[in-house]
């Protein structure tokens, strides 16, 4: 295991009695610092961590199995429930995968609104991470600040989709409906004031000596280990690997947006904190660009057999009524084949693998969620360090148990 030169890893005494002095400690599943129902079986020598074994599955709901019994369009609301802190990214990734199978062309306006909302969703995810991570370290105030802004974002989600958390706003073929009239102005209002709020968090934490001491040099992850263990997203970029699917393999029109991908070569918990903080600023810029260049036009693809018709049309046109009835009762057939759609969500690389056998129900839906892989790196980051660091490390990788257990 590579170690950070700035923070020496404590050498374990290699005595014969070492085994007797070791203690196994159960952290979780009901532990406030494990962000859900994660159970960590920690083997300790005094206060020094010998091994960490994550035990997961407490939140397993068999979503992948459920998907196989639903029509393609009925899977969209299931995806919200997987990573409930970044709901629109889930929607987007699934919709993109199915649209790839169908070969659907998505109108530009729908793509831009998708980018805008996905970035707001990323901000939502990062705000929760920042609040809970700081709270784990003992800085309670930040939590109240970040949840104040998160509330604003949730109100925007509610205005556009009717739901605060389980939005299901992106549908196969576009959006569920046009956003309300003043909605873009509300986003503008929020995004204008948001950079100051990031400064506020930064003022509370960046110079805070306790926060710095708890984070700097803790949980070092080398770029080689990070790549080998499948770590993605901010933890990977904080270890110096410059990869962001939004920029490198663009989807949903991301190639039209200019933004920087922050990286750090330090690879510790502090670097992850800094990378995410800059990412929030970059997301703000993307939202601003989306607002400035928002194209007009429809928000649904021109595919009457796949996309539900507008309510008004359905009441006046026979064709639309028939299509509506057929889609709701029979679904729509998707050409046989298999696709994998990857994207960059708040926590890292998300991926949907959809296999179709040509019927109206997916034959197999598999989700790759970043936290599942990142969890494997916890032991590498914590071995030989104090148990108090474990809390900082688990907070810094930003896990959501819903997406790990699925």
């Amino acid at each position, binding site marked *: 295991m590579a170690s950070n030169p700035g923070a020496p890893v404590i050498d374990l005494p290699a005595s014969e009695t070492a085994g007797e002095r070791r203690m196994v400690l159960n952290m979780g599943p009901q532990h406030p610092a494990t962000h859900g129902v994660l159970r960590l079986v920690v083997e300790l020598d005094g206060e020094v961590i010998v091994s960490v074994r994550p035990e997961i599955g407490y939140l397993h709901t068999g979503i*992948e199995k459920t998907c196989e019994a639903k029509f393609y369009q009925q899977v969209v609301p299931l995806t919200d429930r997987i990573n409930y802190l970044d709901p629109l990214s889930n929607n987007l990734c699934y919709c993109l995968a199915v649209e790839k199978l169908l*070969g659907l062309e998505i109108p530009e306006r729908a793509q831009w609104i998708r980018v805008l909302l996905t970035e707001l969703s990323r901000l939502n995810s990062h705000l929760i991470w920042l609040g809970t991570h700081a709270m784990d370290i003992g800085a309670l105030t930040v939590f109240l600040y970040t949840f104040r802004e998160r509330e604003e974002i949730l109100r925007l989600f509610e205005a556009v989709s009717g739901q605060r958390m389980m939005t299901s706003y992106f549908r196969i073929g576009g959006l569920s409906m046009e956003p309300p009239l003043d909605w873009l102005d509300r986003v503008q209002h929020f995004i204008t004031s948001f950079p100051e709020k990031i400064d506020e968090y930064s003022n509370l934490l960046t110079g805070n000596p306790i926060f710095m001491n708890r984070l700097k040099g803790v949980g070092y992850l080398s770029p080689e280990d990070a790549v080998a263990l499948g770590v993605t997203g901010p933890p990977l970029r904080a270890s110096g690997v410059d990869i962001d699917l939004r920029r*490198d393999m663009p989807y949903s029109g991301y190639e039209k947006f200019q933004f920087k991908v922050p990286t750090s070569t330090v690879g510790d918990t502090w670097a992850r904190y800094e990378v995410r903080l800059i990412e929030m600023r970059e997301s703000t810029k993307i939202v601003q660009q989306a607002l400035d260049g928002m194209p007009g036009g429809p928000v649904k693809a021109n595919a009457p057999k796949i996309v539900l018709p507008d309510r008004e049309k359905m009441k006046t046109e026979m064709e639309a009524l028939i299509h509506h009835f057929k889609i709701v009762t029979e679904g729509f057939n998707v050409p046989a084949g298999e*696709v994998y759609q990857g994207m960059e969500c708040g926590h890292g690389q998300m*991926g949907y693998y959809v296999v179709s056998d040509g019927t109206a129900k997916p034959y197999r839906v*598999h989700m790759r969620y970043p936290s599942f892989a990142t969890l494997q790196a916890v032991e590498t980051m914590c071995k030989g360090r104090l148990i108090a660091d474990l809390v900082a490390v688990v907070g810094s990788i930003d896990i959501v148990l819903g997406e790990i257990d699925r």
Partner: protein
Amino acid sequence: MTRQPATVSGKQAVMEAMPDHPAVKALEAWNPQAFTDARYDFGELTLTVAPTEICAACVALKAAGYNFFEDMTAVDWFPASPRFQLSYHILSHTLKERIRLRAMVDEPDPTIDSITPVWPGANYYEREVFDLFGIRFAGHPDLRRIMMPDDWKGHPLRKDYPVEGYR
């Protein structure tokens, strides 16, 4: 308005259509017998290899620049034979490209080599497939159930396992 990228099916056709593709070249140079099939569909490249050679194929692809193991899972094609399809998604950080590696395994004892020696990050993914599909991975360091309780009977993602009701 719809669009579909051209489909190229069959190993020979793929090799003719994209002779310079690094992954196709690497696998052909590695072992032409074990590299059995290829397909380019929906803009994605699927390469099928013999299940006994999966680990060596991963080593060859890793050397060709496909450095990041992104995802793996299985598909149950019950009642077809071979029954299980294993799909590995491998990303290249330098080429900015993803390929799908495919291997088929069959009943009664579906077993394949673990690729954890090549990518330790495959550990949880193989445990998940073991848990939900009952496919065993030879050489896996810690092959236990991951989602379901340890004493669970059956493998939920198999197609002969009911979605609801009693088993």
